[in-house]
């Protein structure tokens, strides 16, 4: 295979529509992909919320969230997660403006917010374990640990992706700026969804 044929072969297998929108969908493929994924995530968390309604309404007694859980810590965590949603859109906006260093700073701040959230969550879990409150203790703690645990795993997943884009993944900016910017938009959509789930988890578990 000569050099020209090799180039043609390579171009033939290039993944299309990673930057520009497809004519039929009006979206670049990654964006449609993340929305389909988020739709499946709605059903995953929806099943847990549905179970919570069923379990709680069937229980002879159910504690108010604030009787068992630490509301001030969870309130701080809510602010931290909301702040991280802002930093990720600011990262995306700055990359669109061509401000790579500022965009990168906001990605780092988002990662830091994720870390703070998980540290507070670990502190909260640790305190529960000290009091011998485990998922097997009661239906209340079973739903609390399952729902916040699954949500925490999503936060960790997002942090791994942000850490990648902050380090090795950042190289793409030099060669494919728009594609890199789109990647931040996609991980941002995922991160906002994680924030959205917490917006409903927080009152449901801690305040009701």
């Amino acid at each position, binding site marked *: 295979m000569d050099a020209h044929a090799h180039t043609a072969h390579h171009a033939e297998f290039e993944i299309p529509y990673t930057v*520009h*929108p497809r*004519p039929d*969908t*009006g*979206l*670049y493929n990654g*964006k*449609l992909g993340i*929305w389909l994924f988020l*739709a499946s995530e*709605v*059903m995953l968390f*929806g*099943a847990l*919320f*549905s*179970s919570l*309604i*069923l379990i709680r*309404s069937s229980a002879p007694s159910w504690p*108010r969230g*604030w009787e068992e859980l630490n*509301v001030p810590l969870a*309130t701080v965590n809510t*602010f931290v997660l*909301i*702040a991280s*949603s*802002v930093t990720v*859109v*600011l990262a995306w*906006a700055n*990359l*669109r*403006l*061509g401000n*790579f*260093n500022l965009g*990168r700073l906001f990605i780092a701040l988002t990662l830091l917010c994720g870390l703070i959230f998980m540290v507070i969550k670990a502190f909260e879990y640790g305190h529960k374990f000290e009091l011998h409150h485990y998922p097997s203790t009661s239906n209340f703690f079973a739903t609390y640990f399952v729902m916040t645990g699954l949500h925490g795993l999503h936060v960790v997943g997002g942090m791994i992706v942000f850490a990648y884009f902050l380090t090795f993944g*950042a190289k793409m*900016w030099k060669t494919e*700026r*728009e594609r890199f*910017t*789109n990647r931040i*938009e996609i991980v*941002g*959509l995922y991160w*906002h*969804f994680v*924030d*959205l789930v917490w*917006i*409903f988890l927080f*009152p*449901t578990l*801690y*305040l*009701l």
Partner: protein
Amino acid sequence: MTEQIAADPIVPERHEHAGVQDPGTHHSPEHIKKEIRVYLIVFGALTVLTAATVFACFGLKLPVHYAIMVALTIATMKGFLVAGFFMHLLTEKRLIYGVLILTVVFFAALLWLPVHDVIDKF
């Protein structure tokens, strides 16, 4: 990465690919700066709403039925702000609306099953 990379907006002009415009990445710098101001206003609103829900449910210790109404109403408002502005659903493509409408239908069915069961008990 230590080198300074010069600020240079990605695409000041609008890109069109096969007649399709991508509203996400191809706005003017002025438009993007306007968006940033909106993001900060939404951040302020989310902060106030979070404080309001904690004050109503935890501070005032509302009875559970009122607390459910207040907390879920405020959570829905916050959800709208995040989905509408941060996830830019207010200006998204029709295909995504289609995917989400389908999701909402199934999600509503999922929630309706236990709620229906609860109502039957009373």
